[in-house]
């Protein structure tokens, strides 16, 4: 019996990515050439060539006309590279107007390729104060698998050098509080280090992931050194020296004891919005979800090639025989919480969620120093986390462009609301943005986001700001307990 689950009054319209029109202008004001959709790269007749900064030069008259009319309309002008209904519906419902990227825009939902161009040394241009984009220029410091690991390793070493209690290690040399990324090596650079580690525990399984790809593409598991050698032969490189960074791989210790529910492996997808890195201000979306594999998990070596057992990406699972389009193999995080509290107890469940929040904040802190904290930027990351059977969370990767495709009805609602809340925080009041604002939205607009960490508040007034802690709600400001009282942070991290 199919149950539809439309929450009350929240049925978003399902526009199938159709192009929008200019219909929101006041009638009688439309000059002749506004009705045309400008395609990328075309220079319209009557327009001068681009300035060095890449934006089209305009004549004084047209500038005035544009400026005054737009000021009168006062609407945010948006562009998007990603034609998804959850985005477009959100822009339209705010009364924003779509423009092309050659025009004066205020808000540009860019793909990662575009952001590279905008901020590149050769072709980039400077953004104006009323322009906002949805990526940080060098987000790849966090979102590329190899750079993320590199930054976290560097961060740990720095803390160790400072003698910070956060970097404390146990008797085996493992970090007590910062061991949240599985052992990882870059290939080909660290091949020999990897071999050494592999030989220490020869029965372990490792997972090979290409640095620059997404959606589970190109990933495979190995449990014998010969399999890597075979791969390197097969990929037609005679040695490991590879010029292009696109072919770079990371190899990580595979977590072969994931927490199973109903016998199946799953991972967590959590959305984290970062509005600024220095000071660090990040928000966590309360409505994350778990992605289940359609096939029962087995660590058996005969099934190492079966991606349906091991990879939880929806892009992979949806091709499985048992994939169900109604629930999409997804569970809400609150379901997970209910299940864990009921079967394992409240303390260990709260501890698990606290640790998850902790590793997200630490990962952001790790890249904060190298991040270009451009004031025109915000970013909504998709964090992938796996929980092992000892209820320890592991950070697998961070995605800069989490999928906005909806696999089920509930999914669409969730992503629509995610974008809605994101826009409410990033573009306050839905008005033309001004990058000089302090990026501190009032609590009412947070929607389903919660403050995960606010460095300013944390360093500001210390202990009085501690919110009453409740399971499922990360406490916002951490008080003055950030770095000084290492151990105390973890136990009182609530």
């Amino acid at each position, binding site marked *: *019996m199919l*149950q*539809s689950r*439309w929450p009350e009054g929240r049925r978003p319209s399902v526009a199938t990515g159709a192009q929008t029109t200019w219909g929101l202008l006041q009638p009688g004001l439309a000059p002749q050439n506004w009705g045309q959709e400008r395609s990328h790269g075309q220079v319209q007749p009557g327009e001068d060539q681009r300035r060095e900064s890449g934006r089209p030069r305009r004549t004084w008259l047209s500038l005035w006309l544009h400026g005054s009319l737009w000021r009168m309309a006062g609407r945010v002008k948006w562009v998007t590279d990603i034609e998804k209904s959850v985005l477009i519906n959100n822009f339209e419902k705010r009364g924003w107007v779509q423009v092309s990227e050659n025009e004066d825009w205020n808000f540009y939902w860019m793909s990662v390729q575009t952001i590279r161009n905008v901020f590149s040394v050769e072709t980039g241009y400077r953004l104006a104060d009323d322009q906002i984009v949805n990526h940080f220029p060098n987000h790849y410091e966090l979102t590329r698998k190899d750079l993320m690991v590199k930054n976290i390793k560097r961060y740990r070493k720095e803390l160790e050098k400072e003698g910070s209690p956060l970097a404390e290690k146990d008797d085996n040399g493992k970090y007590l509080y910062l061991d949240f990324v599985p052992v990882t090596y870059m290939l080909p650079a660290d091949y020999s280090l990897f071999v050494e580690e592999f030989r220490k525990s020869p029965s372990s399984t490792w997972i090979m992931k290409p640095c620059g790809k997404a959606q589970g593409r190109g990933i495979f598991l190995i449990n014998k050194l010969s399999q890597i050698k075979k791969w390197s032969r097969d990929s037609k490189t005679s040695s490991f020296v590879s010029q292009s960074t696109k072919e770079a791989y990371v190899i990580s210790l595979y977590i072969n004891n994931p927490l199973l*529910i109903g016998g199946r492996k799953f991972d967590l997808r959590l959305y984290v919005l970062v509005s600024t890195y220095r000071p660090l201000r990040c928000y966590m979306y309360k409505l994350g979800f778990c992605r289940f594999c359609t096939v029962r998990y087995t660590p058996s070596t005969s099934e190492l090639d079966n991606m349906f057992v091991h990879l939880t990406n929806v892009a992979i699972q949806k091709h499985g025989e048992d994939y169900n389009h109604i*629930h999409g*193999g997804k569970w809400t995080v609150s379901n997970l919480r209910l299940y864990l509290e009921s079967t394992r107890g*409240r303390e260990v*469940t709260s501890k698990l969620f606290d640790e998850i929040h902790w590793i997200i904040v630490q990962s952001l802190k790790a890249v904060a120093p190298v991040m270009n904290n451009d004031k025109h930027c915000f970013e909504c990351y998709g964090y992938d986390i796996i929980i092992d059977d000892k209820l320890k969370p592991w950070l697998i990767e961070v995605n800069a462009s989490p999928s906005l495709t909806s696999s089920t009805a509930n999914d669409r609602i969730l992503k629509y609301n995610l974008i809605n809340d994101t826009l409410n925080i990033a573009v306050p009041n839905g008005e033309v943005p001004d990058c000089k604002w302090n990026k501190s939205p009032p609590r009412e607009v947070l929607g389903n986001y919660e403050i995960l960490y606010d460095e300013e508040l944390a360093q500001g007034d210390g202990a009085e700001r501690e919110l009453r802690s409740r399971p499922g709600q990360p406490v916002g400001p951490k008080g003055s307990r950030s770095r000084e009282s290492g151990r105390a942070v973890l136990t009182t991290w609530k």
Partner: protein
Amino acid sequence: MLQEESDLSLIIAQIVQKLKGSNLYAQLERQAWASLQRPEIKLESLKEDIKEFFKITGWEKKLQNAVYSELSVFPLPSHPAAPPEHLKEPFLYMRKALGSWEKRILKSLNSMCTELSIPLARKRPVAEQKELLNKWNEMGTDEPDLSLFRPVYAPKDFLEVLINLRNPNYENGDPLSFRTHLGLIQVPLKVKDIPELKEYFVELGLNTGQLGIDDSTQVPPELFENEHVRIGQKVLAEQDSAAAQQYIRQGSPTALRAELWALILNISGQPEDILYYEQLKTNVIQYDLLVDRLTYKDVKLTASNDDYYFVFEDYLYQVLLCFSRDTSVLGHFAYNCASPPKSYIRGKIGLEEYAVFYPPNGVIPFHGFSMYVAPLCFLYHEPYKLYQIFREMYVRFFFRLHSISSHPSGIVSLCLLFESLLQTYLPQLFYHLREIGAQPLRISFKWMARAFSGYLATDQLLLLWDRILGYNSLEILAVLAAAVFAFRAVNLMEVTSLAAAEAVLADISTLKVMPLLQIFLFATVT
């Protein structure tokens, strides 16, 4: 006075009789023998000393729990000369209706069997047994062709039978007045009204703390939640069923719920229970039943598509297939006036010596049956524990939702309670819906028949089932159904067809159960 005393001694005798055959008795006996070794047991005061010993070591508590458990399903006191069917169901017309309904179901099952030429039961060949054993943990991946199988019945078929129930001794020839019952159910059973419900559900009152309301984020935990959790832990430490039942009326903390339910249902993880489950599992492996196909189909159609329960699909097979073969379930027919369907060994129809109950547990699964098990998967992840809890929940509560009886928790009474609540306290809404051909019971029946499983969010459902256990009654389902209608009354007043009314009530997964109940019972002007 005398009558009560003799009633009491009769009840005691019956319970003693029942418990004598149980495992607990054997254990108590063993313990008593073992205690003779102890120095404090003296021959002169043997009886008192042993009693004292039992009290200290917690065995008395266990006995108390067992007695309490028996009492919860004990039939109401009645005339000593009443024949046994009367004890189970005093109304003749109900017994008759139940009999004909059962005949219908059986006929449907038999005709499916002959149409598809599949035997009701058969022994599996060894190869198939091996295969099933290997696949025991992932039966969900099996894709047998079930297209030709139809569920034996769905809740709405059952509703039609209930609608046609009439008491032949009750002449309802009075002209229509405001006292006439305008709903679908037309049998005169006594149901509670709101003042009586307020008394009955007194712990749900506005002045009493509740989980589901007073543990929300705005309320500081010191006010209620922390204390409540502390008391819960104490109750568990004492292992007292009756106390747990009283405690859970205010809701159970998530972390304690699994243990509390086990305590109230008097289920402890004995090794015998694990063995029993393994025996049932062997039975499943060796024999194939026709009803298994019905179970498969049901799971595939309901739980597998559910956002909350799809994860537990494999567990559902492991529980339900074993359930069909569990003859101990036949015990509940002692207080359930339904009778288990009978089947005859091939070629020997009509000969009583060759009659067997089919399915072995006497319960034919219907569409949606697996949803009784699904929410329990959030609490128990060991199959044998899950199985026991479900079996106990079934023989105490769920069977009443699909059998015709006059019991206050029976589905007939629940429907009548729902309709009278609506008619008495929301007359405008009730009349409007009736006028547009959307009798409210047609919408709410499926909620009540499934105890709201699959309609509410799981955490809310578990809070509701807490109260079912706490009050040992299903009446709260009818009250909740009425409360939902009251909550959506404004929208419902604007609809003009049954389909539109159903659309307004199609999704209740965002509702919070306890505030609805509290408002309906205690905060509405009556």
